[in-house]
Structure formats: C-alpha cells, structure tokens
C-alpha cells in the first residue's frame, strides 16, 4: 500500500491507469509507459520496450565487419557518424591498426558535429514538449547545414555509413571545408539566440527545474552515462577517462549539473554543444600542420583499393578479391571499445573467432540502461512533468531496442 501525502490509500481502485504510448506525441520513438496515477500525480510506471527490436546483435553475427557499419548508423540515428566512428575504432583495436594523426583529427571533427546534431534535437524537443516550437524551427536550419556537411563527405544525410576501417573512404572535398569554416564562423550566434529563447525563460524554467530529479549515486547505480549522468553531478566522460582518437590533446570542459533535473540535462547539453564547437575549432587549427593528402591508414587488407588500380595492378586485384571474398585472416580476440556517444558510453564488445563475421557483437547501448530509472525519476510528479522528463532523457528508440 502506498501513502500519498500521509493518507493511507484504502484500495488500488482509486488509481487511474493511464497508457502513455506506444504511439503518443510525447514519446519520441516507440515505447510504452503504463502509468498508475492518483489524480494528476504519477504513482508508478511500468515500461514496455522492444517495439522496434531489429536484432542488431544477431544480424551482426552474419555480416562482415565493413557491413556492420550500416547497422551502427541506426543505433542512435540522430548522430550516426558517432556510432560509425566508434565501430571503426573497435575494429581497428581488434586488428591493431595505427591511425595517422590527420585521420584522428578528421574523426574528431565529424564526431563533434554529430554530437552537436544530437544534442540540438534533444534540447529543441524539450522545448517542443513544453510547448515552445520556435526554437525547434530555428535551430533545425543548422541541423540541415550539418547534414549538408555530411553529404559532401559521405553522400548521405542521416544514416551516414561514414568512414572505413583505418580512416575515410575519400578525402574531405573542398566544399566540406568551406561548409565547416562557415559553420565555425556563423553557428554560435544563431545558437546563442536559440539558447536565449529557453535557458532563462521563466516558463521553461518552471517546467523543467526540479523535474525528474535523480541524484548522482542513484544515477551511478542505474548505470547512467553521458549527459544524463553529468547532469546529476558526476563528471564521467569517456573522452577524458579513456581518451581515444587524440582527444587527450584537446582543451575542453565537461559541464556538470547540480540536481539531475530536466533543466540540468538541458543546460548540460547546451554547454556541451559549445564545448564541441570549441573542439572542432581546435581540430581545424591542428589540421594545418598535417599533410592534407592523408585520409586513411595503409590497410589494403581491409579496404577496397581504387578501381583504376584493380584493373591495372596485380596486387590491387588480389586485395580486392581477398576483401570481397573474405579471405583475410581475422585475429582471434575479444576487444571492448567505448566512445562518448550522444547519450553516453556506447560500447562495442567484439568477439572474433577468426571467421569473416564476428562470433558475437555486443552493443552496450546507453539508452537501454538508463531508461530503467525512469519510473524512479517520475514517481510523485505530475503527468506533464513525466513527459518533460522523458524528452529530457533523450531516449532514442533505435538505441533502446537495437
């Protein structure tokens, strides 16, 4: 028996069962919450997930390593390049491939652009869920621009399948550099305008301050990572704790929140966007010292050679054959690599048994793990607070169910 405000509840029939989802405007993605409500107050929540379960881990057991990139696109599809790069780094760890510094810097630029893109969706959608549509409309213009950057690099907007083992499929074209420079020059002004609409907005703060709180210890117990954990006060960032792709050389701050409320999550993400912007600027600076022709490590075993070479050189023909037919030996190893993805620590545990496809690929998906805490975060709050909490946690269904 629960007590609400000190009154013992006599029977359960007093509670209203409200079905929030699976199709609901406030659930971005498909997941169901059956809420037990006492009037407007949420007493408990029971979640059902799996409505978009696509069996990624099982598919990965039947795909060669370069085809799994397309699966990783569709994990957190708001920031596909981040997942792609994380996967490539895992494969490079398995194969023991050293990357040229320029490739690492290019990857940092792409990953931070993807992080900005992901955080923009989350923060603008928190606004939309509290009724503020303008921010969403303004800032999506810049997301379109980031999509154009992706398009000039790899050809696709959303599910990018960007990069190859050891680097990128082709060098960044001059248009991509023009757009990145334009981004660095003009983005912050519009972003600050978007931020000013919400961050000190009385209505928005009333909607989000103190809503969906979780303390740092509980967040750690629930396996939180990423902006949600940092909003709860714990400064764990995989880029700093286990630096990869040259992140150790960059100067950036890790924003940390106070009480783990929706407002903290919003502010942490906004500040991370500014930090990502600074990282991209630093990366572009560092690239000046690098040879601009380098875009991939020399790994002919794992990347298809250019077609002209295949038709004229014997070696390239052999490598092409070996690649396509899967004749290259894979080491028998078990490696784990994790990156700071848009939602937290995205981990890939790759078990290879020497065959062409992984023996087992485990995707450690941050959304799946921290969504468990949702009932605890909304217990005792209003229904509209539950909606704001849900959107501030940035639950992406593709990453939830995989």
């Amino acid at each position: 028996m629960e007590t609400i405000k000190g009154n013992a509840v006599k029977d359960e029939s007093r509670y209203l069962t409200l079905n929030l989802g699976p199709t609901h405007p406030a659930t971005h993605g498909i997941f169901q919450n059956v809420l037990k409500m006492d009037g407007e107050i949420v007493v408990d929540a029971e979640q059902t997930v799996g409505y978009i379960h696509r069996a990624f881990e099982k598919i990965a057991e039947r795909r060669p390593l370069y085809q799994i990139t397309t699966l990783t696109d569709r994990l957190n599809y708001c920031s596909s390049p981040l997942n792609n790069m994380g996967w490539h780094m895992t494969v490079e760890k398995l194969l023991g491939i050293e990357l040229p510094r320029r490739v690492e810097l290019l990857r940092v630029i792409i990953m931070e652009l993807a992080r900005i893109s992901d955080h923009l969706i989350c923060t603008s959608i928190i606004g939309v869920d509290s009724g503020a549509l303008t921010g969403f409309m303004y800032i999506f213009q810049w997301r379109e621009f980031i999509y154009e950057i992706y398009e000039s690099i790899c050809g696709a907007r959303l599910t990018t399948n960007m990069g190859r083992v050891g680097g990128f499929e082709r060098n960044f074209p001059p248009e991509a550099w023009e757009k990145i420079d334009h981004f660095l020059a003009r983005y912050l002004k519009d972003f600050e305008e978007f931020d000013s609409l919400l961050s000190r907005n009385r209505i928005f703060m009333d909607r989000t301050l103190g809503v969906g709180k979780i303390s740092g210890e509980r967040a750690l117990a629930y396996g939180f990572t990423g902006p949600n954990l940092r909003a709860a006060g714990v400064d764990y960032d995989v880029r700093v704790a286990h630096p990869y792709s040259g992140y150790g050389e960059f100067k950036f701050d890790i924003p940390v929140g106070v009480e783990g409320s929706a407002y903290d999550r919003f502010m942490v993400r906004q500040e991370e966007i500014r930090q990502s912007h600074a990282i991209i600027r630093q990366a572009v600076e560092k690239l000046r010292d690098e040879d601009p022709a380098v875009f991939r490590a020399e790994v002919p075993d794992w990347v298809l050679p250019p077609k002209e070479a295949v038709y004229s050189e014997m070696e390239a023909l052999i490598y092409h054959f070996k690649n396509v037919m899967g004749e290259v030996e894979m080491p028998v190893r078990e490696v784990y690599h994790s990156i700071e993805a848009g939602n937290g620590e995205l981990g890939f545990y790759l078990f290879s048994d020497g065959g062409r496809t992984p023996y087992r690929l485990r995707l450690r998906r941050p959304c799946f793990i921290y969504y468990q805490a949702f009932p605890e975060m909304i217990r005792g709050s209003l229904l509209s607070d539950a909606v704001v909490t849900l959107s501030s946690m940035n639950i992406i269904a593709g990453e939830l169910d995989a």
Partner: protein
Amino acid sequence: MDEALLADLRRVLGERILFHEADDVPTIGVEASALFDAVTALYRDEALAYRYLTDLFGMHYPAGAGEAGREARGEDLGLQVLLYNMEKGRRLRVTCRFPVGSPEVASLTPLFPAANWLERETYDFFGIRFKGHPNLKRILNIESMTVFPMRKDFPLEDQSREDKDDPMFGR
C-alpha cells in the same frame, strides 16, 4: 594482466578464480554458483572497488569451446559481466559458464539496479535464468515467444518470406 591487479584479485577472490587472461579487458572466470559472491566481494573491497556495472550479457557456445584457458566441458551458455571502477578507470570482466540444460545464476539486481533490464535482456535472448530477479520476463521480444533467439541454432531471417529465396545464392 597487471601483477598488482592479479594479486589483489587473488586476495579478494582466492579459490574462486578458475582462470584469468588480459587480452584487452582483464578477465577472470568463476563458477556460475560463485558469481554473485565474487561480484559482491569485488564491490565491497576498498582497493578494487568495482562499483559500476557497465554491461551484462550472455554468450552461446554450441560446440562448448571458446574462452582461453578452459577446455570444453560441455557447457554451452555463458555470462559476461563487465565491471568498472570509475575513480581509477579500470575495467574488469567476470565470466562464467553454465552446464547444459541448467543455465541459472543468482541475479545481480540487489547489488546493481542497472542489472535489472540487462538480465531480462539476457534471459530474453539466451534463456539464462536469474534467481531472485524481481521481474524476469521478456523485454525486447514478443512476450509469447518460446525460443531464445540469440542462440546460434535460431535462424536470423523472417521465415514467412518467400520472395527472397534464390535458387543459386540462397537467401
């Protein structure tokens, strides 16, 4: 594996370590029945302090092989627990195997609330039962499913589809 780490592990776990290796993440193997005690001991020890659960997932070895340092004992399902010490940034993988036909182990939910859904997912995909789990039912697949899809003998493709069968290349 780092000598200091191995010494600490031996101090805390003693006889429970069946094997150890450290290709990428330092790994120790324990018996399934000792998993909960081992993880609790690792949690409580002040020097090791593995107090964060990064991941928990199952494995299926139909031939009974796989995993360094262990000869095949006819065990086909396995569990991997990835622990993390956030202060020192150290990972540890604790792994155990189950005898064929009785994949049961004590649930880690009293220790880590994060293990709740991870164990449900492992049960859903492999059929490993977690004793003491508050709500062990399927999470990602359809509730009425009777088989465990991530096992190697379960087919990947949708079986009701005929238009993709090719006489020369199969599916």
